[in-house]
């Protein structure tokens, strides 16, 4: 049996479907655990991707990872595989479950297990990959977003609502600051990112326009977030966040190795730069040598025309 824990308090993300599809492919019976007040009809849609049953614990809200870890372990006796997403929740819960159950954790899996049951992960900030072998009987996997395409194979599944109280860790949540922008960067399939080449915070309008035409999230390079042109949570790179969208458009970013470390998992990279020696061109699939202030509005118009004709 494969047990999947999903954090659903903020709605169902595409990566939740990816996790269930992944689980279905590694083990026949898939049971999803979740906490909080997600609507039962919404949870039932996980059945379409292969979940046999969803168990939702209404007594805990999922924000206390220590509590969640205990609850997951309580249900893990018959699980051969325990799956998490390699996201904020998974990074806090999976290691705890690994210690509690003395089960090896494959952190940040990017593919299904190989024939020899090793699982591929990215290492050295995406500059290499490795195949992890788990030495314990139970196996814990945290899956990186965008690693597998969700496959609809069935209809809805039953949702079992339980009220299992678990001791709290004592962490009190005082408030939550919501991020700006609609699409969370780590999950975004399309990302428009800009650097110092934009010359000032006031020039980000052309970036926002392109992003909204594409339905993309926005990101930036480290200097830009350090100067305060853009918020820190948009900073991608070695010391910011690492992303792996389908399309990464880098505008006015030279492509320092620290920046590349955060984006080299992208499927396709487009680079727009005035400097033909910019190292980013070497990592790009498509390059445009030109001034962002001319090229980007033109690209935005081209995207709008394309969308109209779709």
């Amino acid at each position, binding site marked *: 049996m494969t047990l999947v824990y999903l954090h659903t*308090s*903020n709605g169902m993300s595409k990566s939740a479907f990816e996790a269930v599809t992944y689980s279905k492919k590694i083990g026949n019976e898939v049971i999803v655990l979740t906490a909080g007040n997600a609507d039962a009809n919404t949870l039932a849609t996980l059945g379409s991707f292969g979940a046999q049953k969803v168990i939702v614990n209404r007594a805990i809200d999922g924000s206390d*990872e220590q509590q969640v870890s205990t609850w997951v372990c309580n249900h893990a006796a018959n699980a051969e595989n325990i799956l998490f997403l*390699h996201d*904020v929740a998974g*990074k*806090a*819960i999976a*290691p*705890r479950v*690994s*210690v509690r159950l003395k089960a*090896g*954790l494959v*952190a940040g899996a990017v593919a299904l297990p190989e024939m*020899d049951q*090793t699982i591929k992960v990215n*290492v*050295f*900030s*995406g*500059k*290499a*990959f*490795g*195949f992890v*072998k*788990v*030495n*314990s009987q139970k196996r814990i996997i945290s899956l990186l977003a965008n690693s597998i395409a969700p496959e609809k194979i069935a209809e809805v599944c039953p949702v079992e609502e339980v009220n299992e109280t678990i001791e709290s*860790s004592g*962490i009190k949540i005082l408030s*939550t*600051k*919501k*991020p700006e922008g609609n699409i969370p960067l780590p999950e975004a*399939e*399309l990302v428009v990112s800009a650097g110092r080449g934009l010359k000032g915070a006031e020039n980000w309008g052309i970036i926002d326009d392109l992003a909204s035409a594409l339905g993309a999230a926005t990101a930036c390079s480290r200097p830009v977030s350090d100067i305060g042109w853009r918020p*820190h*949570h948009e900073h991608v790179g*070695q*010391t910011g966040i690492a992303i792996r969208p*389908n*399309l990464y458009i880098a505008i006015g970013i030279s492509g320092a190795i620290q920046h590349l470390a955060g984006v080299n998992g992208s499927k*396709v990279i*487009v680079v727009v730069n005035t400097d033909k020696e910019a190292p980013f061109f*070497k990592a*790009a699939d*498509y*390059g*445009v*040598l*030109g*001034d962002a202030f001319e090229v980007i509005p033109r*690209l935005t*118009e*081209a*995207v709008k*025309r*394309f969308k109209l004709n779709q």
Partner: protein
Amino acid sequence: MKTLVCISKAPDTTSKIAFTNNNTAFDEAGVQYIVNPYDEWYALVRALEIKESVGGEVTIVTVGPNEDDAIMRKALAIGADKAVRIDANPKDAYFVATQIATYAKTIGFDMVLTGKETINYNGSQVAGMIAESLGFPLISLASKLDVEGTTLTLEREAANGVEVVSVNAPIVVSCAKGMAEQRIPNMRGIMAARTKPLEVIPPAACDDLTTFATFGSPLAKSEVKMIDPNNMDELVALLHNEAKVI
């Protein structure tokens, strides 16, 4: 605050990443090691700032062989009070976390800080594993940490934004960007680091739960295709028809 900061070495960002022994081990030839940036810039520097404002002691710990003393001296130069090296080759995250937790239990710390991940294995596992082994709460991916008495107020990354949380020590915190600014060690720090205590202790018995079977390097990117800056319709068409990403 009695604080333990976990330090890992990591290859300098410009290092060539290659593998040896039939692609089963990282090739260390010619590799320059640095203190893992998340451990140094965020965890260690914030621990020192807290010590400077409320008092206490900052101990650094690593799991590694003799050669790692150099990394520990560097972290001492930034301002840690003393260093402990657990004398073993780190096998996997569970092994490292078990060693550090075993040591931490014998001393008793109010806070255990780690970087959010290492830049070599990027697993983000050790902090959670230490927290579980010690039975402490974990604040994962924290970008702010303030201490008042035994109460800590932190900001952490959450699924729906940034959460402001409060919790009582003892805790484990994994530190991300925003925590602190980089500190460059000065000459006085470097001189003082030479005489600060660096204790070497033997490892505890521990199984490794995972093993890297093999490593590999991604295929080189094909040549970049340059597009006429006056013809963005062509770029859009290529992204749709050839790359199939829009």
